[in-house]
């Protein structure tokens, strides 16, 4: 079981990271949420029969955990300023890598300004999940997924374009 769990997390750790970081931008909160997701996955694993794809199953657990996760009150006010605490990917000294890192940080910052349900949808969209998969994970119709994605994408792009830092990073490259 332990081996199976490790293999699963090794393969899909990106899902947990992206969801945790989007729902808990502060590093300490993110670690709590990431851990909570691990706890829930570990507990649910004995009942996983493989009827759905492992990634679909993992997305459900991670999103359900994130949506009901309560951030600590004292940190909520600084929620949008957390990115600087995250360890950047080792910089190879090239400006382009720095710009990419900055863009990712800003993207997270803007995602964290979306509503919780919107974050779930945009995360699945960015991870290139099909509409059918998204509908299966979220439990809503494929049509509704399509309508929502269209609106949320526009909202996210608007948030990014309103961000001066984003425009600068974009132009620098």
């Amino acid at each position: 079981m332990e081996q199976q769990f490790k293999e699963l997390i090794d393969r899909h750790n990106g899902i947990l990271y992206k969801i945790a970081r989007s729902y808990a931008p502060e590093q300490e909160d993110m670690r709590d949420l990431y851990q909570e997701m691990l706890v829930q996955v570990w507990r649910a694993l004995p009942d996983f029969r493989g009827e759905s794809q492992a990634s679909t199953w993992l997305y459900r657990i991670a999103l359900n955990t994130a949506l009901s996760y309560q951030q600590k009150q004292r940190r909520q006010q600084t929620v949008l300023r957390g990115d600087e605490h995250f360890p950047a990917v080792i910089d190879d000294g090239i400006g382009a890598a720095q710009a990419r890192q900055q863009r990712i940080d800003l993207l997270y910052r803007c995602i964290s300004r979306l509503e919780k349900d919107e974050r779930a949808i945009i995360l699945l969209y960015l991870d290139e999940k099909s509409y059918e998969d998204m509908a299966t994970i979220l439990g809503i119709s494929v049509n509704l997924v399509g309508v929502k994605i269209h609106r949320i994408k526009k909202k996210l792009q608007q948030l990014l374009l309103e961000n001066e830092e984003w425009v600068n990073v974009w132009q620098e490259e």
Partner: protein
Amino acid sequence: MDLRSIWKDNEAAAGSYYRQLSDEVMALARRRSRSVLDKVKRIILIEFVAGLVITVAAAIGAWNYTSQPVFFLLVIAVALVAGCYPYYWLWRRMRHIHEKPVLEALDEQIVVLQSYISHVLWLVGALLPLGYISGFFIGAVEGGAPWPGVLLSWKMWAIAAPLGVGICWLIVFFTKKYMNATIGRQITELGRIKLELEHEVQ
């Protein structure tokens, strides 16, 4: 602006974060959950075990001290089955809750948390009067009132009942306030997410 291509750069950060934790992943996964649902689950389990212990003690008492043990045991057995049902119901709903599609899971969480609040209020509202009235009459008997005649004294009931109702009302009122401020807030939040997820904003 291709957001997906920017997002792909994220994989390296995810891998890097995971590598920092990889040695303690199993330890983290085995830690106690801090979610509200799991706290509710733990409280329910404690309540259930405590209820079971009290019922078994009452059954042993009935067996030893009454002339009609079968009747009392029957009453206790009915109480046990009736008492177990709400716990079983909550337990069943909470199982696999995180593995369900998001909308369904939100719905289930709301039902479970609302039921838990009702359960606590019901428990407080039922047990407090029982505890208070028992304490009141035990005190009266200790003070010299005749047993069991004291139970038929309207004067005693005239003092005990309004006080009991007042105290219980106050405690239930504040318990409700507290539950609404803690779990109730989460229910509202989950309800809002659910509503926004199942309908498209106009």
